[in-house]
């Protein structure tokens, strides 16, 4: 009851602030877009920097002349780490602020909450984070990795390395459960051993029983879809139990450069991660991007995969608008999948016809400075597959344009 009242008050205040902002931006040579990330609550740690990257892209585009001759005016909203608020704010952005598109979301719960809003209002959401797939909507451009672009390449790499028994550990919500379901089907198909599967509530801090089971199961490798603070507790308690990453490899799917720095790189040194972008990627485009970000947000600011996805989403949107010659959501998404590959910090990127990004998978190993040494790169860019044929046979994602 207490929370509800205070939320209503906060919401009222936020709505009032929003109206003032939107009242100011009504010039003819501007176009409004929404930026919707959690700026407060537990997810703020990760999402504030995605907002920074999206805003940086908008600033850069404005500095070089805008889109179709119009300056972009971002309307920033706070999803407050709460799926219900994400849905409310998405409605507000599209209906009241009349933004032409929205960049945002992080957790699968936030995306699932916003999906019906964008479908009903016939608008378009650009979603920047890797996720569990098993979803296919014309209202969303999925730039984060599908399972076959992150989890499964990591699994293939582990097989190549000769790992035979796998232990799946995750936070207890939709992404880890679905991702592990897919991994399990593949382990089964390849006749390898699933040594155990454990879930800990989001934010859980006690891993004593999980570690005892890991010790009993003696896996070759742990696949971890733990999210947030739980990772710190897990790695600390693994170290204390005499199982540092050097002894029992851990492959994480939610630890990026920023999380590693926050956890203290020594804690996670030697552990592996799978992403479609690492700050250490050695290309001129990436060096330029990292330098620009650090010039703006501090010389030690870490750059992560979801931030880069948020950044390139804005650029792909711009290119699609220019190709379509209009801001109309339906025409923009049709144009977006027809575009030629665009250069980006993570290499040339292009959306497939199913509105997910075609991208390369990388495996990295954390060094003492919290940066990844790239150990493995997939053979070329991987086509996105929202429905893994082994786990979800017969399902196909086809979007009409």
């Amino acid at each position, binding site marked *: 009851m207490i929370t509800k009242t205070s939320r209503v008050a906060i919401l009222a205040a936020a709505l009032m602030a929003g109206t003032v902002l939107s009242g100011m931006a009504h010039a003819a040579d501007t176009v409004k877009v929404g930026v919707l990330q959690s700026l407060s609550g537990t997810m703020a*740690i990760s999402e504030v920097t995605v907002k920074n990257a999206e805003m940086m892209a908008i600033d850069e585009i404005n500095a070089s002349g805008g889109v179709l001759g119009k300056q972009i005016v971002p309307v920033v909203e706070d999803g407050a780490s709460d799926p219900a608020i994400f849905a409310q704010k998405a409605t507000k952005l599209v209906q009241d602020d009349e933004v032409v598109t929205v960049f945002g979301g992080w957790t699968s719960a936030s995306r699932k909450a916003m999906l019906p809003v964008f479908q009903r209002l016939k608008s378009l959401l650009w979603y920047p984070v890797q996720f569990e797939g098993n979803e296919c909507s014309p209202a969303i451009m999925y730039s984060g990795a599908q399972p076959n672009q992150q989890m499964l390449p990591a699994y293939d790499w582990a097989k190549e390395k000769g790992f035979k028994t796998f232990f799946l550990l995750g936070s207890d919500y939709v992404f880890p459960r679905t991702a592990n379901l897919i991994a399990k089907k593949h382990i089964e198909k390849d006749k390898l051993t699933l040594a155990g599967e454990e879930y800990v509530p989001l934010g859980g801090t006690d891993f004593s029983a999980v570690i005892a089971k890991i*010790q*009993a199961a003696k896996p070759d490798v742990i696949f971890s879809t733990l999210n947030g603070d739980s990772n710190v507790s897990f790695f600390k308690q693994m170290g204390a139990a*005499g199982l540092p990453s050097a002894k029992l490899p851990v492959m994480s799917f939610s630890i990026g450069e920023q999380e590693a720095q926050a956890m203290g790189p020594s804690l996670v040194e030697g552990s592996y991660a799978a992403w479609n972008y690492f700050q250490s990627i050695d290309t001129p485009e990436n060096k330029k991007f990292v330098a620009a970000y650090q010039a703006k947000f501090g010389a030690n600011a870490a750059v992560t995969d979801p931030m880069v996805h948020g950044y390139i989403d804005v650029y792909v949107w711009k290119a699609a608008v220019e190709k379509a010659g209009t801001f109309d959501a339906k025409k923009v998404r049709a144009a977006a999948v027809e575009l030629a590959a665009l250069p980006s910090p993570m290499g040339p990127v292009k959306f497939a016809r199913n509105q997910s990004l075609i991208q390369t998978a990388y495996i990295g190993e954390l060094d003492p400075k919290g940066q990844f040494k790239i150990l493995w790169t997939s053979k070329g860019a991987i086509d996105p597959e929202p429905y893994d044929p082994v786990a979800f046979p017969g399902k196909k994602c086809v979007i009409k344009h």
Partner: protein
Amino acid sequence: MGELTLFVGQIFNGFSVASLFVLSALGLALSFGLMRVINMAHGEMLMLGGYLAYLTLMVVPGPLGILVALPVAFLGAGLVGALLEATVIHRLSSRPLDTLLATWGVSLIFQQGARNIFGAIGVDVTAPAWLNHTISISGGPLDGLTLPATRIFIMGVAVLVLGGLALLLAKTRIGLLVRAVNQDRETAAAMGVNARKVDLMVFALGTGVAGLAGVVLALLGPVTPNVGQSYIVPAFLVVILGGLGSLVGTAIASLIIGLFSALVQIYVDVSLSQVLLLVFVIAFIQFRPQGVIAVRSRALDS
């Protein structure tokens, strides 16, 4: 590693989890028993202890830092607790529901304060080298059993705190006064006991113990602005199960909860074990609403 090893290992883990629970719940149990105050900001005293450990380790690095951090956190959290009692809780002592709301507000202020000062991401307290090893058994029926030194250290702290408090309550004059006020506040006051002072002291003592809990928690997990929130729910469970205001009850309830979840977790995962734990506590208080140990007190009768 056999079944037996896993079982024995889980009993050890159960004791280890129980020692964390006892440290986080003692203060709640004490202050509720004496003053009928539910301090929603109790978890933030844990958080305070964690941040004080972090600060102490910056000033006193090296192997003994953590031993210095314990008294620092105890005194620091105790002082903040005393201040909280004097400024908020005492003034609302006749309105228990308002204390609930006020201390909840205080907890939000503390969390936001920590976020503003230390950042949302949290800070890291590293265990000193002498705690950073594992006793492992190889050969024999318990082959493969590992006992992390940090967890043994935490159990030691819990035992010392429990023993110290028991001695304080049973053997000292202060303890006598506390027991007197606990049994019958009006009569004790009529006999010349300064109940006001006793309240203040017990509350500060309880928050001080929470501060200690914060230091040892930092050895196992991160110190973040919302670290207290993850321990406050089990702490309330311990208090409900143990019987309000009883030291022995709190200790026994912590052990029951710790061992129950550790042993259940051999068969189910952590999420499900928490569900089963809640079911167990609800069933238990159906049969024994007064908790493990019933404390007879005028304060709780009405």
